[in-house]
């Protein structure tokens, strides 16, 4: 027999057997698992090819669902190219949590990319109003009195990237460019007669999802904005100084006269770093939700907190629970020193635990021992947010005789 013919026969036998094996594997799984539950418009390739064992071990596994690997690693065993690209820029929280299945169906789905056709419902499961730590966290509504058309149609992907982006809110483009991609400049100019200069900062006035007001103007208007532009803007230059804001918001302005402040440049007015000067979704007229506003500059701190093994206990939803938002004379703009800020909630802690306070010096520095001598509320690798292992390593830093 000619060698080429022999090779052909062996090849056919091999691939035939492989096909048979996959088919046999799938048949075997579907004797118990109803096959119909694994079928939809789009079927995951291992399911389609009958290779359930790519993800599942049929006999025993360490992970729920008899998965071969933990959730963070399983998907990347095939989708290797995603592992690195998903570390760049601002990353969608489910990816940080290795929860690919928060958005994707593992077996089959009605939409492309194994995502349900009703993408909006899936997005709102996290981004809608929800209960967290016994509190109701406000979120996006399914529809508003006036709803932005793409949002109404469930086209979240028209504006947001699903995985990661270099821009806040995972936007696909810079906000003004993004608005301009649908709304022609001429059309916008016509609707903003009398606006000085080039139109910009759409999101300072408009809510991109929806609003109770026509033209998606955000629900809460800054009082001077209602009275007219001249209330704040200098007629000659159009600019608004920080001191102008301070004329009404004297308390906030006073807080900024501190050793550490958020008085930094931003279009000539530091207030608009965080606040929208014209309209907002709540009384403080913040540009976004509190954490998102802070994350615009302090993303690494927030990521460190999120990624810590042990975080500060529940009921801490906002950075401003512990930190001053405008300025302060304490470390990291905390609302007091390492004792005072913790005592805002932990009233009795210092009275029955390790001695702390002005009478108790740290032998390493001679400085007062405070809560943050041993704890880091921004999260650590040890229980109770201890900065080192509390079984021994932490204590012997000072108690060396033990």
């Amino acid at each position, binding site marked *: 027999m000619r060698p080429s013919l022999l090779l052909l026969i062996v090849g056919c036998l091999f691939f035939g057997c492989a096909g048979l094996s996959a088919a046999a594997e799938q048949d075997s799984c579907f004797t118990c698992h109803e096959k119909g539950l694994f079928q939809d418009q789009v079927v995951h390739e291992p399911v389609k090819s009958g290779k359930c064992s790519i993800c599942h071990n049929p006999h025993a596994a360490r992970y729920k669902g008899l998965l071969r690997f933990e959730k963070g690693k399983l998907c990347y065993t095939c989708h290797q190219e995603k592992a690195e690209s998903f570390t760049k820029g601002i990353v969608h929280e489910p990816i940080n949590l290795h929860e690919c299945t928060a958005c994707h169906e593992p077996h089959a789905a009605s939409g492309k990319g194994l995502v349900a056709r009703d993408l909006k419902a899936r997005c709102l499961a996290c981004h809608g109003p929800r209960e967290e730590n016994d509190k109701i966290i406000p979120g996006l509504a399914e529809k508003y009195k006036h709803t932005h058309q793409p949002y109404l149609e469930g086209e979240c992907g028209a504006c947001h990237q699903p995985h990661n982006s270099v821009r806040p809110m995972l936007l696909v483009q810079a906000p003004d460019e993004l608005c301009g991609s649908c709304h022609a400049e001429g059309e916008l100019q016509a609707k903003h007669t009398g606006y000085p200069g080039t139109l910009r900062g759409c999101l300072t006035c408009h809510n991109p999802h929806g609003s109770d007001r026509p033209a998606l103007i955000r629900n809460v208007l800054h009082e001077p904005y209602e009275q007219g532009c001249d209330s704040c803007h200098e007629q000659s230059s159009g600019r608004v*100084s*920080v*001191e102008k804001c301070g004329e009404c918001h004297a308390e906030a302005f006073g807080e900024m*006269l*501190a*050793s550490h*402040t958020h*008085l*930094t*440049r*931003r279009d*000539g007015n*530091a207030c608009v770093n965080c606040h929208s000067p014209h309209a907002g979704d709540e009384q403080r007229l913040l540009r976004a939700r509190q954490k998102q506003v802070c994350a615009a*500059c302090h993303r*690494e*701190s927030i990521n*460190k907190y999120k990624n810590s093994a042990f975080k500060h206990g529940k009921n801490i939803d906002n950075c401003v629970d512990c930190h001053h938002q405008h300025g302060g*004379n*304490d*470390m*990291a703009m905390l609302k007091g020193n390492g004792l005072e800020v913790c005592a805002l909630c932990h009233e009795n802690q210092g009275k029955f635990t390790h001695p702390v306070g*002005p*009478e108790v*010096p*740290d032998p*390493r*520095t*001679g*400085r*007062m021992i405070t809560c943050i*001598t041993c704890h880091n509320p921004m999260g650590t690798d040890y229980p109770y947010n201890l900065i080192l292992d509390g079984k021994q390593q932490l204590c012997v*830093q000072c108690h060396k005789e033990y």
Partner: protein
Amino acid sequence: MRYLMGIRRKAMSQSRRRPAPGMASVHLIAWAFMLLWMGAADRVLASAWTVQLTLMRDTIEDAMIMPSALFIDQEREQYYVVDSGKNRLLSFNRQGALLNVFNAGGALKTPFDMVRTEDGMIWVVEKGRNSLTSIDLLGKKTTPHTLRSREGAVYPHRLETDGEQLFVQDSASGDIIVYDSGLREQQRFVCTECSQGFFDFKVASGKIWALDWLGKSVYVLAMSGTVEMTIRLGDEVTYPVSLALGPGGYLFVLDRHSRQVVVFDPDGAFKYRLLQQGIATGQLYYPVEILFDPWDGMCIVDEGNARVEVYQQ
């Protein structure tokens, strides 16, 4: 064609030529040694900084609270520490012994930075009253000055001097503004690329070295205002708050969140990092400023540990 074949034959003959086995080992060892040495050199540099001096108060009652800046008077061989939490200035001699504690009769309100000009005048950034305050020690006179420029009120943050002029970093504009001793604006250094302007700067080698913390970049500006070089710090730093020009023209960047000093060579290439988080001597907690003294000491002001440590290589 024959020419091309000739080349090919030559290449083949070269590829077949092998060095003697003993010679190859020598080359290999030499290369390995060289690579090891090149890698180790940076590590040696990185590990060679040790604490020589600590500027602090010994008693818990009199401890500094949130020291924010250091000024070094080369002529008098003194260190001045700004104790922002206790509204005072402390002077130490070159050996680290406390010389004086000065609070201008209780007049200082959240002092943040200071310099002493050649005429003996002390200038203090007082954040609590948004003032650049002059202190005439001989005349025993303290005068707050609220600065204004054509852009509006100036909010001084960092302060440097070349001996005569005052270089003020303005938080509101992010610019560095140069004033003469009469507080007349002489010049303005603007960062057109930064979203938040400059955060810290040093005047060294006749240039301005300015840090854009949010953009994680350092700009080297000529005195004309022209940007001569931009150093992208990239992911080597997380939250850079201060910078200093060290020996050999190396750039030392203080990273507040990683509690490290990150060092770049004169071309802006990352070289190594120093120090670690902690409370013990030689560790950083919430560092806020880095600078070099004229005696090659690397000085780090640490708010969190309420001290200034001077490291020597």
